[in-house]
């Protein structure tokens, strides 16, 4: 039975890892292009979950249909927020530290606002897929997870295509490598930055819906947990590297889930952090450091 459980843990880890990597991906795009340490990322994720909750309650929209709506909604919010908040940071002496503090403040503000408007009770999206689970031998996989996995793969695929095959995507990667050089060749870095922040928050919103589907209860307090997971993942994979997030997510997911099987959940959290510290120790630029990107 333990062998079955281990296999189950491994599969769980792969699926969760890929979904976690979405958190890292959006966090990394924002950090890579804007040098903004988005400490409020987790709160935007939870806001995405609440958006799906209210779209379902008020308009009867299923979480699947809500995803594109939420992406557009959050992308617009991100676009606007760029001009209101992020742009001003560039004028600071030390934009990275300033962004950390501003975003930390935003995180606290958003958490408090959600608590005020949505109350502290745990909420849950009301939906069920038929059949609820699929059996592969002794291994049970909830259909929701498979669907969430498929959506994650599609999103990752589109992102990869966007980053490597389209002009704005290539420009975006170029900004990650050398911001001033991109400006000198006549690309509107401003517009690109606003777009990036928009895409980043759009992903955060969609990730929130996916997470609310597979982890059924959410509350205003959960944001910080996701921010933390996001940062562990991008430290593992390499700061500012979009594909690094994918590897970081998988590594973290599998380590966490297998540890739950072998020990317990409290130990799993510990092992996750130990992994991060080990990477910082032996490979400070992450498994996919910025060197590999060039």
């Amino acid at each position, binding site marked *: 039975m333990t062998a079955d459980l281990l296999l189950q843990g491994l599969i769980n880890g792969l699926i969760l890892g890929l979904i976690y990597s979405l958190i890292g991906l959006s966090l990394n795009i924002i950090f890579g292009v804007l040098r903004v340490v988005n400490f409020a990322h987790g709160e935007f994720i939870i806001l995405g979950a609440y958006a799906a909750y209210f779209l379902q309650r008020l308009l009867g929209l299923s979480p699947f249909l809500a995803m594109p709506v939420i992406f557009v909604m959050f992308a617009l919010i991100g676009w606007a927020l760029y001009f209101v908040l992020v742009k001003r940071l560039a004028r600071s002496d030390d934009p990275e530290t300033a962004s950390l503090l501003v975003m930390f403040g935003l995180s606290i503000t958003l958490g408090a606002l959600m608590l005020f408007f949505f109350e502290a009770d745990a909420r849950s999206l009301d939906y069920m897929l038929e059949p609820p*689970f699929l059996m592969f031998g002794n291994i049970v996989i*909830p259909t929701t997870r498979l669907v969430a996995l498929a959506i994650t793969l599609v999103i990752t695929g589109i992102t990869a295509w966007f980053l490597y095959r389209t002009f704005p995507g290539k420009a975006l990667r170029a900004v990650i490598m050398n911001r001033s050089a991109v400006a000198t060749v006549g690309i509107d870095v401003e517009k690109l930055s606003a777009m990036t922040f928009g895409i980043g928050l759009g992903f955060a919103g969609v990730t929130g819906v996916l997470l609310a589907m597979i982890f059924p209860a959410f509350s205003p307090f*959960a944001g910080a947990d996701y921010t933390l997971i996001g940062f562990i993942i991008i430290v593992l994979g390499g700061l500012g590297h979009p594909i690094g997030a994918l590897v970081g997510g998988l590594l973290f997911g599998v380590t966490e889930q297998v540890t739950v099987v072998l020990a317990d*959940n409290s130990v799993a*959290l510990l092992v996750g952090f130990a992994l991060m510290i080990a990477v910082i120790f032996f490979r400070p630029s992450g498994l996919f450091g910025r060197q590999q990107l060039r």
Partner: protein
Amino acid sequence: MLKQLRNAALAAAAALAFTAPGADAADDKIRIGMTVSSAGNFALASQSGVRGVEIWVDEVNKAGGLEVGGRKLPVELVKLDDRSDKQMTARVYETLITDEKVDLLFAPFGSTLTAAAATATERLDKFLVIWSAAADTLYDQGFKNIVSATQMPVSRMPVASLDLAKELGTKKVAIVYVDEPFPAGLATGAEAAAKERGLEVVLMERYPKGAKDFSLILQKARASGADVFFPTSYEGDLISMVRQMRQMNINFPYTFMVYASTPQFQAIGEDGDYIYSHTNFHPTINWEVNAGLNREQFVEAYDRLFPKAEYPADFQTVLAYGAGAIAGEIIEKAGSTDAAVLKQAALDLSGELTVLAGPYKIDETGKQLAMPFPVVQLQPEKGMVTVWPSEVAVAEPIFPIPAWTDR
């Protein structure tokens, strides 16, 4: 809130001003002291509780008072503010005893403040009636003059649900808990209670606060072969567990969730069906009381005395009211307000009384051994109904819980 604060401040000021002349009034009435939290973490629960005591005082005085030594003496409640503050609580209980010259005391809300109050009442040798302190440690400190009239300690809260599990013929228990003081205390209590009843504890699994995914924990519980699934976490985690149990077709013949009795949990709808939980105040829980009001009379008294209360009576009100009714019996039996005599009377009455909150039974330390939280089940047609113990059950437990695929 502002008004309550002002009232509390006025009460405190008035109490201080009249301390000297009022001090020898003890002969023609029984003065009971307690603190209420006008502000801070415990304000809401504390104010819910004090209403219960006030209902009891009103009921006693309408009947002419308590019979002590052949005379009927009315009861006077002296309330001061503790602002949910531990240090302040100890000081105010001293004030109540030395300046207000109260005859006995009711505890403040919660274990933290009650422990502070008990240090004062022990030192000054007064009797303390507890209605809401659930920490086991409080009763292990050798306090002589305390009695938990209605609140059972955390370690005993899982007792009734495991009695029912045993009765239903289950054998193996899987306990899962979030690593926080109260849920961990419940889990340890459940482990001990299960072993006492000859049930085998096949899984004792802890997880950190903030965990989102329970799928592997649930599968470990299934793999352990348990027929009783006993998570002691808060609502949010329990909701996740139930949903994931359905998503992975995980079934246990008996699933008990402490917070499944809350409206927040029940908002999840039919996924919550058949789950067992517990509560002590519900329209289907009606004990055969032999002291104080029954549930209907109590609700009527609450509405009459507190027509403007923002909340209906809750379990704190019930526990505090029950403690009042039991204290009344103890005082009449003792015929005195001497702490040692009252404690002896409290022990003599152990096993003899049943109040609104349930039957009363204590040990030498003053720890409450009875007052079981009756077990309820969320039944599809009937909603939440009491299924155990037999004195208050109104429906048969549905056992085993039907598998997800058979619903």
